[in-house]
């Protein structure tokens, strides 16, 4: 029996679903291995049960909460597809503007048109079984998760710093270049293969924090390399403002 699979999308750029479509050569294999029930119609009534539900996007409206709960009830396994769903991504930067007052100040009378709540990762609403964390997900991690689910094993999900993978790539660390880049690799969960540093940029923290991240030291390092303390704190929250650990970043 092929697993029944649904893809759902909430507040997001849909880049993660696009990455699945971008798996070109493997796409037909994937399509062949599953019974695709739903693709990108998150707001439609959910009239099927799912073995696996891939959920892209953060929750940022009351109405999305209802749909997500409904979907969780009908799905055996729920996978957070990408940073929006896994950690809130940039969507959660808005949360600090979210109070009624703020909204009014910015949007005047228009505020009432917008059913908006603090953007949050889906696991702050329902139980999540597995996470694909990158923004956008990588094709490799999708393939790994996909085969893991088919084999009924827990997928590989590293809980160490991006720096580990960056050293394996033997990149020159951006902090050695002093090129005005402020890498968050030392506190960010690996699994992307240190993509950004490998392409000469710095890790912007899209995969969320590893456990036991040392934020004090990280902020200090960024400061030592020339970033204002407040900016460093904010940078660490660029993709992760909605995570509970973000409270520890001061």
């Amino acid at each position, binding site marked *: 029996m092929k697993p029944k699979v649904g893809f759902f999308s909430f507040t997001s750029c849909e880049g993660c679903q696009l990455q699945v479509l971008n798996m070109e050569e493997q796409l037909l294999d994937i399509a062949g*291995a599953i019974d695709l029930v739903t693709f990108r119609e998150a707001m439609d009534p959910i009239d099927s049960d799912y073995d696996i539900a891939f959920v892209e996007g953060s929750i940022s409206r009351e109405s999305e909460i209802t749909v997500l709960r409904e979907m969780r009830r009908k799905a055996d396994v729920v996978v957070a597809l990408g940073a929006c769903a896994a950690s809130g991504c940039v969507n959660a930067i808005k949360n600090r503007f979210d109070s009624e007052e703020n909204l009014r100040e910015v949007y005047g009378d228009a505020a009432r048109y917008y059913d908006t709540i603090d953007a949050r990762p889906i696991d702050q609403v329902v139980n999540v079984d597995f996470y694909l964390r990158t923004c956008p997900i990588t094709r490799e991690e999708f393939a790994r998760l996909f085969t893991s689910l088919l*084999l009924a094993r827990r997928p590989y999900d590293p809980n*160490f*710093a991006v720096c580990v993978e960056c*050293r*394996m790539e033997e990149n020159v660390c951006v902090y050695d*270049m002093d090129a005005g880049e402020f890498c968050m690799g030392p506190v960010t969960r690996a699994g992307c293969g240190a993509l950004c540093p490998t392409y000469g940029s710095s890790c912007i923290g899209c995969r969320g924090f590893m456990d*036991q991240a040392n934020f004090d030291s990280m902020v200090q390092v960024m400061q030592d390399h020339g970033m204002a303390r407040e900016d460093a704190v904010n940078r660490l929250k660029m993709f992760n403002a909605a995570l509970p650990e973000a409270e520890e970043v001061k």
Partner: protein
Amino acid sequence: MIGSKVVSKRAFDEMIQALAETSDVVAPVSRGYDRFSYREVKDASTLEVDGYIPTLNPPKKYFLPPEEVLVEFATEDEASVASGARVRAEPRIDACARVLLGVRTCDLKAIRQSDEAYKDTFEDDNYFARRNRATLIGLTCLEPCDEHAFCAAMGANDVEEGFDLLLTDWGDDWIVSVGSERGDDLLETLQSRAVTEDDRARWEVLQGKREEAFAPSAEKIVPDLDALPDLVGDSEDSAVWIENGDLCLGCGRCNLVCPTCFCFDVQDDVSLGLSSGERKRRWDGCTLLEFALVAGDENFRSDRKDRLRHKLYHKTRSTFDRYGEVFCTGCARCFRTCLVDIYHPEMYNALHERLGGES
């Protein structure tokens, strides 16, 4: 000790060029920003680069690659590999003849130590398939590569073994020491002359200068090298670990770039069809959170300070007990990569001081 032969740089370079035609020749190459990496080269010109500091990743990457496939497996009839079907499993070892050129003495020492660990009780075939095909051509340091290296304190700025050839800069020539038969054979192919009395006199002068140059490096660590195992072994609750553990990012960089760190993780990957796959190993590090995690989520070293201490414990006490040597070469890669400047010599000195040692 002075080498046995003198070879002109030109002749040596020609030999390397010839070697490069038939095997992989690798040497430290500048990556900019005062950083170097072993990369493939076509000649010996990189040896002329003044004072390069130890490469980002040590040469261990050639013997224990960051990631390698150990086993390839497949079922016979397209069945899933995890379905209970009979699975055919084959070893996979990729190895090629390779010349490592310009290996610093600290790294030569590290390679010798890794060899020992990878030979211990069970010989790791993947490691030795590559190691045995490698020719090590070392390079004597005339002065410490930078102010952080503490190789002299670890006795790694001079080596007597662990190379095929060892070069010392001799103006237009190299003085060459031979460390193996393979080295001897190589030298045979070259026009060389024996060292003269003149050379010996010059050598003595050079050694004097070297000693002077390395004096600061030797003084980086206050306690004796042989005292380090006890020092670290008996300091379980020292505040040194707490202080440094508070600073430590737990990022694992120091493990990964260490020439004598050789721990790994093993993971299986399967094809989308589920009927074949690979078992891979990849570098791991004992400073990483889940390194010692077992069933029931018990973690034997759940704090950064415990993991930091374990790393030093392993480098000193454990390896000393097993191999009679401290497995640290003083290359200072760990310090250069560390974003919060944790420096092993400082930790040793602080432990020493707190035990009432003199400084």
